């Protein structure tokens, strides 16, 4: 008997006690301390396979005893009745009746609730009447598997014995055999037991199938042990200590001989549970209670992967169980964690092994603590170690049933007491993790599973991985069947079972797919489950239903259909996606984008026919088609260009001719002739006496002007020709001043006002006109033709000049002037053709309409252009150049500047005429000489 020394008082206590007899203190460490030292595997982390066989020496004594006992039992069983064991292996199909659970038992089991609170919580949420087909089918499968298992136990009297927490069930040989087989882990039986409470809500089909084994039980439809269990469950004390689902009872029974016999054949994780039986004083449930309670509850509350586990335990013979136990040594920690919670739950409070509690995942431990202390429920449910899908379950599911499930989950103190050898377990956990990592099969399987799937399957792979070989025999899906090492090799060689069992990823995948075949799976696994996963599962489930044989046979190619969802494939490299998704399943071609942001996506709209033609462009002839006329035109153009490009021969001028002698000679003649005329003041040329109608008309218009009128003089000439303009306009202006006309001066040239002032000062100084009184200089009129028109339309608006602070329009010369026609006469003095014509064009019509005289004194160079306007009548009089001025003077009988310059002007014109004639003669003679020379040369 193992003893434990109290760390407080130092007194020795039996190893089964968890509290000291003397000081009532806890004898063992808490699991939280161990958890801190041991490596925990969180959800989504790949477990490490362990080889715990090397750690046999570290096992506690009770475990070693249990193993020895198990080996002895195995030897005895195999030697005594091998045929019976063989018959049990062949019976499952013949006895598919699971134990029937009456309502009474269900109510009792409700009190003890589901060992896995989280699953029980899910079940509580589910409406069993609305259970999906897949769940019904699953239940049916499980029921059939239970039938296989229940038959050998139906006749056992030991199975009828009541199971109490304090009294260990009597173990018979059959029980021991079943214990040795290790068919089902204790936690699974807990699950089943917990689910019996929901069996009433299962579909009728399932109930009918379950009703068959009822006949084999007592009249209440319950096995005896269940009946006893129900009776005890009615009492509060029993309900607390006894769990209807006591899977751990297989290993936690107090019957040490039984545990010792089974210890060798049991897998390690079961072996870990055995100390419960050794250390606990309260007798756990019997071995028979496990298969009897398990099926119905597991059918209801367990997902598929759980259901897949059950047949293994039921169908695996004792030898295989022993071998699978060896394989279980390589189970990863998290797998062990999944196995052990049920064991912990099924053990009475006093008999909670510390090892089990140590291996529990945190979230499970928290659940246990929450059940013990409802205040910790919230914290437990919010633990980070919980899987995501489990976190989605409301906390009420745990807390609300916590009162009923406190029996299932032992208090944490008990767990701490049961930790016999924390260091050894820690080493064991480390080795398990390492071995799992080194397993290539497991690694390969993990590599093919997406992360999200791995996360979800991790909690389920623990028990599955161990029992997968048996599960594949009954309802193995295609993908499991496709694993060759898991089916046939297990049957033939138990050593290969270890290898196949160590592929949790595949097992979980298949089980997960099966379990997702209904809508209820969405509720179970929460909102996080994507739609595609829901859509994938039914198809696979249907495959299993329609082709069970094929699934059992195993078709490796079936794996490809459900390996990766479409959206995952879309994330793969483009090349692989294109090759895979170019065609859909129905044979319809889908366009797959190979480039751009939609690369890798199929089903995109193809490029339309009009969005890009691939036809070759038409061939156009390079040779031009040119007509004859075009060719002739091109030839003309070519000749022109050729003549332009030819370099013209420039004849070098002689040095003698390069001097401007002719220019100098002509200039000298002019200077001498004009100078002499001016200097001598000779009157060689008579005054112009020819009739000049324009000058005569001008004189006539001036003579007809009313007295004391206002004449408008427009000085639009430049300084260069001021001499000519003065000579031409002086007699006209003098005539006008002689008439006593007031004068208003305006100019469209900026220099005009200054030239006007100079004109009046130099030529009309004799009249003594004063500014503002006799004449007004309106100044510069900007705007060109527009300004002219503006002034013609409204003189006062166009000119806003002021003189000595007063408006010019208030002065005497402009006192009565409001319009252009108010002027007595308009005289334009200009040397520019354009300006003269502009004035004619803008003002002639207005002035002619009002019979206002319109006279012009222009330069001789503008006469050829302006004269037609006089001929047309638009201009009433015209004085042009020096000749016009001289003529005007003569007609007026005056002797002015015109007459003074007339001789010089006449000499200059004569000289110019002579020069022109001489020059023309010289050129003519030169040409004649050149022609004669040519003729002589030719002749």
């Amino acid at each position, binding site marked *: 008997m193992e003893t434990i020394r109290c760390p407080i008082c130092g007194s020795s206590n039996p190893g089964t006690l968890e509290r000291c007899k003397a000081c009532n203190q806890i004898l063992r460490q808490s699991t939280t301390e161990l958890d801190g030292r041991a490596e925990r595997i969180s959800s989504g982390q790949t477990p490490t396979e362990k080889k715990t066989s090397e750690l046999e020496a570290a096992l506690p004594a009770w475990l070693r005893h249990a193993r020895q006992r198990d080996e002895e039992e195995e030897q005895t069983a195999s030697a005594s009745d091998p045929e019976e064991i063989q018959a049990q292996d062949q019976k499952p199909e013949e006895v598919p009746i699971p134990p029937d659970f009456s309502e009474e038992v269900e109510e009792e089991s409700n009190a003890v609730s589901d060992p896995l609170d989280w699953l029980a919580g899910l079940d509580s949420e589910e409406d069993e009447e609305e259970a999906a087909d897949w769940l019904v089918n699953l239940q049916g499968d499980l029921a059939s598997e239970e039938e296989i298992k229940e038959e050998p136990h139906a006749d056992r009297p030991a199975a009828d014995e009541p199971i109490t927490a304090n009294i260990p069930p009597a173990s018979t040989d059959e029980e021991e055999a079943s214990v040795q087989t290790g068919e089902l882990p204790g936690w699974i039986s807990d699950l089943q037991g917990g689910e019996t409470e929901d069996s009433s809500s299962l579909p009728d089909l399932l109930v009918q199938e379950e009703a068959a084994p009822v006949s084999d039980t007592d009249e209440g439809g319950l096995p005896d042990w269940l009946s006893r269990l129900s009776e005890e469950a009615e009492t509060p004390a029993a309900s607390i200590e006894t769990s209807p689902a006591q899977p751990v009872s297989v290993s936690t029974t107090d019957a040490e001989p039984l545990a010792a016999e089974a210890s060798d054949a049991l897998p390690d994780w079961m072996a870990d549970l055995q100390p419960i039986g050794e250390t606990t004083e309260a007798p756990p449930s019997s071995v028979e209670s496990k298969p009897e309670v398990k099926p119905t509850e597991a059918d209801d509350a367990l997902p598929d992967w759980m259901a897949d586990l059950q047949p293994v335990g039921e169908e695996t013979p004792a030898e295989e169980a022993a071998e699978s136990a060896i394989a279980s040594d390589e189970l990863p920690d998290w797998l062990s964690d999944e196995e052990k919670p049920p064991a912990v739950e099924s053990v009475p409070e006093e008999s909670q092994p510390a090892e089990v509690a140590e291996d529990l995942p945190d979230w499970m431990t928290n659940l246990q603590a929450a059940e013990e202390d409802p205040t910790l429920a919230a914290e437990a449910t919010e633990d980070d170690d919980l899987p995501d899908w489990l976190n989605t379950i409301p906390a009420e599911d745990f807390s609300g049933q916590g009162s009923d499930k406190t029996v299932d989950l032992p208090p944490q103190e008990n767990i701490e007491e049961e930790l016999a050898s924390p260091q050894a377990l820690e080493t064991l956990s480390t080795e398990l993790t390492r071995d799992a990592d080194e397993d290539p099969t497991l690694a390969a399987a993990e590599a093919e599973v997406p992360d999200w799937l791995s996360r979800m399957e991790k909690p389920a792979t623990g028990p599955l991985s161990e029992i997968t070989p048996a599960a594949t025999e009954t309802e193995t899906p295609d993908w499991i069947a496709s694993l060759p090492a898991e089916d046939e090799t297990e049957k033939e060689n138990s050593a290969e079972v270890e290898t196949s069992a160590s592929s949790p990823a595949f097992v979980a995948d298949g089980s997960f797919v099966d379990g997702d075949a209904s809508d209820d799976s969405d509720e179970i696994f929460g909102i996080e489950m994507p739609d595609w996963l829901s859509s994938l599962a039914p198809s696979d489930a249907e495959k299993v239903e329609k082709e069970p044989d094929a699934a059992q046979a195993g078709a490796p190619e079936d794996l490809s259909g459900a390996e990766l969802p479409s959206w995952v494939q879309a994330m793969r490299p483009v090349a692989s996606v294109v090759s895979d998704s170019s065609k859909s399943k129905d044979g319809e071609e889908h366009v797959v984008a190979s480039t751009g942001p939609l690369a890798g996506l199929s089903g995109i709209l193809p490029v339309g026919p009009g969005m890009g033609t691939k036809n070759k462009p038409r061939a156009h002839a390079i040779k031009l088609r040119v007509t*004859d*006329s075009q060719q*002739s035109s091109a030839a003309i153009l070519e000749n022109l260009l050729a003549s332009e490009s030819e370099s013209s021969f420039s004849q070098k001028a002689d040095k003698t001719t390069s001097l*401007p002698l002719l*220019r*100098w000679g002509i*200039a000298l003649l*002019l*200077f001498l002739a*004009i*100078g002499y005329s*001016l*200097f001598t003041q000779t009157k060689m040329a008579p005054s112009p006496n020819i009739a000049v109608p324009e000058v005569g008309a001008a004189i006539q218009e001036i003579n007809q002007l009313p007295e004391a009128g206002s004449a408008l003089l427009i000085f639009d000439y430049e*300084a*260069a*020709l001021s*001499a*000519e303009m003065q*000579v031409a306009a002086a007699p006209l202006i003098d005539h006008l001043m002689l008439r006593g006309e007031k004068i208003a001066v305006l100019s469209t040239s*900026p*220099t005009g*006002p*200054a030239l006007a002032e100079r004109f009046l000062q130099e030529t009309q100084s004799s009249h003594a006109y004063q500014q503002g009184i006799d004449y007004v200089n309106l100044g*510069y009129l*900007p705007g*060109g*033709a*527009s300004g*002219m*028109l503006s002034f013609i339309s409204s003189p006062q608006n166009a000119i*806003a*000049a002021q003189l000595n602070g007063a408006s010019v329009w208030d002065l005497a010369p402009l006192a009565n002037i409001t319009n252009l026609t108010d002027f007595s006469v308009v005289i334009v003095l200009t*040397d520019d053709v354009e300006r003269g*014509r*502009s004035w*004619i*064009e*803008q003002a*002639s*019509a207005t002035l002619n309409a009002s019979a206002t005289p319109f006279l012009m004194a222009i*330069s*001789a*160079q*503008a*006469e*050829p252009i302006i004269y*037609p306007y006089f001929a*047309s*009548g*638009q201009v009433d009089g015209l004085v042009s*150049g*020096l*000749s016009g001025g001289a003529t005007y003077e003569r007609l007026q009988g005056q002797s002015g500047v015109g007459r*003074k*310059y007339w001789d*010089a*002007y006449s000499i*200059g*014109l004569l000289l*110019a005429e002579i020069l022109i004639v001489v020059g023309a003669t010289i050129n003519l003679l030169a040409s004649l000489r050149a022609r004669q020379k040519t003729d002589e040369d030719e002749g």
Partner: protein
Amino acid sequence: MSFSPELISGLIAFLLTLFVLSYLIGDQILFRATINIFVGASAGYVATVAWHQVLAPNLVRPLLSGTSAEKMLAIIPLTLSLLLLAKAIPPLSKLGTPSVAFMVGTGAAVAIGGAVTGTIFPQVTATINLFDMAAANERGISSSVQFLEGGLMILGTISTLVYFQFTAKRGTDGTYRRNLFTKILSLIGGIFIAITFGVLLAGVYSAALTALIERLDFLISFAGSLWLP
């Protein structure tokens, strides 16, 4: 001898006149300096006139001391003027486009209207009226002379217009040739054009000769005033 302003101005004018006449011996510095002086003086004078006679009375004064209506009206030319100044800045030259468009538009409209109503219609009418014998008789001109004068005027006008007509038919050899009648009218038109250019040249020569006479008279008069008190 006192240096009166008239003497100084006369002396400057005398020298500048000689500098301009020095162009006979080539384009040299005296001629260039004189030209630059004339251009500079003219530009300065024009700027002064523009400020005193245009900007100040028509823009600045209304803005500073005008009524509200005058100020409002002055904003328009002010804006257009500022935009026109933007033409001097290449990046902002487009801003001056509205002002230029306004000036060109109004100027073209005025010029075209004046040309049509003041030149084309009156000249055509005058040409037609040359054959008004009654009017000629009233003026004491015989009909034959008037008819000859009118005929000559018609011939000169038509021949000159034909001369500037460059359309022709293509011959069999591919060359373009006018017909004989067009050729004759064109030739007559060329004569009239030549005479017109001769008259224009005579007018220019007459104007230049008058200016030369006036300048030589100035030089002689100024030189005589220096030595002949």
